[in-house]
């Protein structure tokens, strides 16, 4: 098997073995989303208008809660330092690592989003755009969050610092993401918002692995 595919598969296998820790935030936030219709007045389309926002904040929090441990275990076990001095590409390894992180934190949410849409009585015609937007947005969020995690790797109590780094950067993605779904639900053209998300997606996937690699190298220099 291709070594990169093997690496990706192994990372997924590790997440599967610690699935309780990895998946719990996601389960928690899905339950939170399911609580909204029970606690808000279901009449008056308030829920339908809030739905994209709820789902997007859910997605963002699911990514955010996993960030602190994204590199932490590999760092403590001495795996990351072997990455840094390996003769193979660190950038590509980071790319696959974040891809596996996305697969365990965001893909399940993407898969349950149709259910959430029904539950929150969001117009079904907005579902397709919501899912495309979620895909583009969560990948971007994972890479940007991973950069925050790499920058704060050697600091104690880094989760607060990651939050301060991550949340402002996440805001525009959430705005455009939720907005694209709202536009689609109102049968307006969602493409401007989606194009912006797509631009951020390609920029992030192209550039951020390099930045993460540099951050990891620097954290081992001292």
């Amino acid at each position, binding site marked *: *098997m291709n*070594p*990169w595919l*093997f*690496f990706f598969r*192994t990372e997924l*296998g*590790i997440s599967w*073995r*610690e699935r309780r820790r990895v998946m719990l935030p996601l389960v928690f936030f899905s339950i939170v989303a399911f609580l909204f219709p029970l606690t808000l007045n279901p009449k008056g389309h308030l829920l339908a208008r809030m739905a994209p926002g709820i789902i997007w904040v859910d997605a963002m929090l699911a990514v955010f809660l996993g960030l602190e441990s994204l590199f932490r*275990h*590999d760092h*403590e*076990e*001495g*795996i990351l*330092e*072997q*990455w*840094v*001095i*390996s*003769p*193979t590409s660190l950038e590509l*390894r980071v790319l696959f690592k974040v891809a596996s992180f996305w697969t365990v934190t965001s893909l399940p949410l993407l898969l349950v989003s149709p259910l959430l849409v029904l539950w929150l009585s969001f117009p079904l015609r907005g579902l397709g755009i919501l899912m495309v937007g979620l895909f583009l947005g969560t990948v971007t969020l994972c890479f940007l969050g991973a950069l925050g995690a790499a920058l704060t790797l050697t600091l104690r109590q880094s989760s607060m610092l990651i939050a301060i780094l991550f949340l402002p950067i996440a805001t525009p993605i959430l705005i455009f993401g939720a907005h694209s779904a709202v536009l689609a639900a109102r049968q307006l053209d969602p493409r401007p918002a989606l194009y912006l998300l797509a631009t951020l997606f390609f920029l992030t996937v192209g550039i951020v692995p390099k930045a993460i690699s540099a951050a990891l*190298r620097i954290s*081992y*220099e*001292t």
Partner: protein
Amino acid sequence: MSKGPSLGLEARALELRRGRRLLARSLSFTVEPGNYLELTGPNGSGKSTLLRILAGLGRLETGDVFWNGTAFNPQKEECHHARTLYLGHTDGLKGLLSIRENLRLFGTLRGIHDPVDEIEKGIGFYGLQHLKQVVCDRLSQGQRRRAALARLHAFPASLWLLDEPTTALDREGVERFFSHFRLHLERGGMALVATHQSLARWITPAGEIALGRSP
């Protein structure tokens, strides 16, 4: 005094620092093929720092490093990473994977396509056959160390940078390690070994780098 290009690894006028504190100044040494140097000194004298710089983890601030007479930057040179194996304080094993899975994962780091035979040989050499399916979190300290050393066996490299390689090993493990180490040197390999116990009773080093004398 000018020297011709020497084979092996040579360091000239290195300076070791931790933070702003100067640990050693104008450190020069040469390791030739088939030889190894012992790295001694009290705790905190910079043994690990030196190994990390040579491995390409730490930054080389002052001084030069040469390979077969050619200067290079250990942090940047990919071919240096390919010819070097660094074993630090941590074993570099994923606790949730078995020994065999860990070695296969390490193979992807070295860019080697699924070296099944080598891995089995490494596991066998360190007497871990019966444990190869066990998740590393369940292993004892010494067993983990053996698994880390099996990496040296499965993935040959010309330069070993070892930080206290025999910690937690039992007597039999130490013997296995040194018989492998001897073989490594006979094949023209090189090594720098940071240690608190003299290794001379196993294999005589070509020299000693004594750190920790006031710089």
